């Protein structure tokens, strides 16, 4: 080890920096995939009929996959920067994580295949998959983060020893309800901003219905959490969350959709920041014996690896942010019935045999009376 003061100080700072980077990745995930989950959970109610469901899904269709990558990168960054955290957390939260993964799989397939399956039954199954596959992660991420705040039973090797029922606690379940409720609210506000027509109206109604339960659950969770752990930063972030949530609700009632969503986005970003601020400097607190906790320092990678990852992150994160933002800009137009049921610009060439292939669009479909050649959502 070279003993150069500057290097020493960087060595001390880098693990903390990466703790922050991982918090930012989770914040990005909650902000972006949060509304995807909300749209999935609300789909049966906010979507309504076939056209409405298409509109709701189209609002997230182009971006959901890119949003989910924030989770993968959070996982990968944890592996690279804090191998012991990665190992203990995902082995320790085994069952919830397996259920989250199953949910994400079902959800991804449901949204991607919905426009490709030929029958109304197939689409109904996709809607169910979208609902369950969004509900499970939306609930379980909150449970998992609450469990981390509460602390887990660990051994001297910093491995989690508590079983499944160590994770299913009243506090954990409350955390789950907060994340589920908030993501649903966030998704509803997103739809008010991104859609046009009946879906927008129903999304406003959903946001209004969800507002009170979410505020009550979040207030209870934040207060209980602060009783467990957390210093001044946690208190400040929780206050920010509460204020932003209430502002978002008030703005929604006044029909200020953009600003309401911006406030809701602040809540989504603040949520993981609150969790991380409460954990610091632990990454997994041991509830049975504080000295066995896994911390930013005893879980981190070597200095060299952290430097490499820092350089990579500093180069590529801005690039990713630019092109993801550009993607949102490209799809900035509100999604309406016309987006998902476009009128054909060119008539199909008259091919007699082709009529036999048009029955894939079920007759009960709203909008099926239009030109039969544009039977479905185009482009996906």
């Amino acid at each position: 080890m070279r003993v150069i003061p500057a290097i020493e100080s960087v060595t001390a700072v880098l693990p903390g920096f990466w703790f922050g980077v991982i918090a930012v990745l989770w914040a990005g995930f909650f902000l972006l995939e949060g509304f995807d989950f909300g749209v999935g959970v609300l789909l049966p109610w906010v979507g309504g009929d076939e056209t409405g469901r298409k509109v709701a899904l189209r609002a997230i269709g182009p971006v959901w996959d890119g949003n989910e990558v924030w989770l993968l990168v959070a996982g990968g960054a944890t592996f690279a920067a804090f191998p012991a955290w990665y190992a203990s957390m995902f082995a320790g939260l085994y069952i919830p994580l397996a259920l989250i993964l199953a949910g994400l799989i079902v959800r991804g397939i449901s949204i991607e295949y919905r426009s490709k399956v030929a029958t109304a039954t197939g689409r109904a199954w996709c809607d169910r998959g979208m609902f369950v596959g969004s509900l499970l992660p939306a609930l379980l991420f909150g449970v998992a983060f609450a469990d981390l705040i509460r602390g887990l039973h660990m051994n001297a090797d910093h491995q989690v020893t508590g079983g499944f029922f160590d994770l299913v606690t009243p506090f954990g379940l409350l955390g789950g309800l907060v994340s589920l409720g908030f993501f649903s609210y966030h998704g509803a506000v997103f739809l008010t901003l991104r859609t046009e027509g009946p879906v927008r109206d129903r999304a406003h109604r959903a946001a209004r219905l969800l507002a009170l339960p979410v505020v009550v659950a979040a207030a209870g969770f934040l207060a209980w959490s602060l009783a467990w752990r957390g210093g001044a930063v946690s208190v400040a972030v929780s206050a920010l969350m509460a204020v932003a949530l209430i502002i978002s609700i008030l703005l929604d009632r006044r029909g200020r959709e953009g600003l309401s969503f911006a406030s809701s986005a602040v809540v989504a970003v603040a949520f993981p920041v609150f969790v991380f601020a409460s954990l610091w400097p632990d990454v997994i607190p041991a509830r049975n014996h504080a000295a066995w906790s896994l911390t930013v320092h005893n879980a981190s990678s070597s200095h060299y690896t952290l430097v490499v990852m820092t350089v990579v992150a500093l180069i590529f994160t801005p690039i990713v942010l630019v092109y993801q933002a550009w993607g949102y800009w490209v799809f900035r137009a509100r999604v309406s019935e016309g987006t998902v049921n476009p009128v054909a610009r060119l008539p199909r060439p008259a091919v007699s045999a082709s009529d036999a292939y048009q029955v894939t669009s079920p007759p009960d479909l709203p909008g099926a009376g239009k030109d039969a050649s544009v039977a479905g959502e185009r482009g996906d």
Partner: protein
Amino acid sequence: MSPDTLARWQFASTTIYHFIIVPVSIGLALLVATMQTLAYRKRGSEGGAVWDRVARFWGKLMLISFAIGVVTGIVQEFQFGMNWSAYSRFVGDIFGAPLAMEGLIAFFLESTFLGLWIFGRDLLSARVHLATIWLAAFGSAISAYFILAANSWMQHPVGYRIDPATGLPQMTSIWKVLTQTTQLVTFSHTLLAAMLTGGAMLLSVSVWHLRKDGAEVDVAHRQVAKMALGVVVLAALGVTFAGHIQGQVMTKQQPMKMAAAEALWNTKSHAGFSLFAYADVSKGHNKIDLSIPDGLSILATDHPGGTVQGINQIQAAEQAAYGPGDYVPTVGLAYWCFRLMIGFGVLAGLIGAALIVQWHRGRLLTSDRLMRVSVWTVVLPLLANTAGWLFTETARQPWLVYGLLKTSDGVSSNVSNTMVAFSLFGFVALYGILGVIAARLFIRTARQGIDPSVDIDADDGSSGDGGLGVSDGVLSLAP
């Protein structure tokens, strides 16, 4: 049951499944990008319109494959920590870096631009829309680069030192980890295998349409068949060459793996390339062995008299180096996977070559037996990929990281068999159902064929009339 048994089964089943799909996605993404480039360059002409229809149709099929690859990939990101937490703790300082880079550099690129490509057709200019598919395809190809760099490090650890305080490996050179020879040959081999797989997929579907419609076939399917034949033959040659170099690298770096691949029990010069062997593992020799004289020596060392080390001698050497233990992988599995990988790959190339010959003779449509076999071409690279993957992972055993960590020491000690069984059966059931759904959707869409109408605004899989519409009337399959 030992704790690692179920974890091994889970990793094997989820990863093999993932690796059946991913080469299809990577291969098709690059090929669809090429098709769209041809459509763009010839835009306004009749040929451009044909390529446009081709790119739209194959884009649809690519997306069906992509969806499965993406969702099964999520599991890969997390299951190292879930089932292999001791491994994750051990290698995280090195292995985590390429994994994180894969997410940040490759996955974001792939998923964001795929979304833009799917939904941006009318919102972006033709040129920018073309760029989005290339960026998505590039993203999927470099994701393979990073994950194979991580895997290559398990095959041949480089760029690290053992930290005296913790006994864990620490990275000393990311450059070596990302560019070591093992990685360069493995990536070339795998990417070419993906091209072979994508080309074979093109071939199978278009030959199916050629057979069904004969001389009436949509000219677009004919174009694709032509493209597919070029890709299959070139990729088969390339993958063979890359595999040969990889074999030589492997002989030097992992001698046990090569010896197991050949069921070569004792060190030999003028070693033959075994065609069929039946080993008596307990006695450490083969009961039956048919081989090509000097074949293995030439493969491994480029020299007929070259010496190739045998299993028994390497076992003794590894015992001397790492202490008592069994360092021999499952020889039968390694031996047959190695042969099946080569055999299936070569067969795919031969089918491509046979089709080219018949096409040149103008006899393609009348050689029905060849056409009937060719419809199944895509199965060959899929099996070859699986066999190759099984070989490279199982013949490294008992090592998880060669020379550093044994597989049995990598498993999560605090995860119960019940929990692993729960997730194993859950994932197998889920993957099984998804496989059936995806395969049916893929086949249905493939059979519908290329939409005969030009620039139609509906692009949702519900249109298409099986290539009955536009055909160029006079069909001469000779070029």
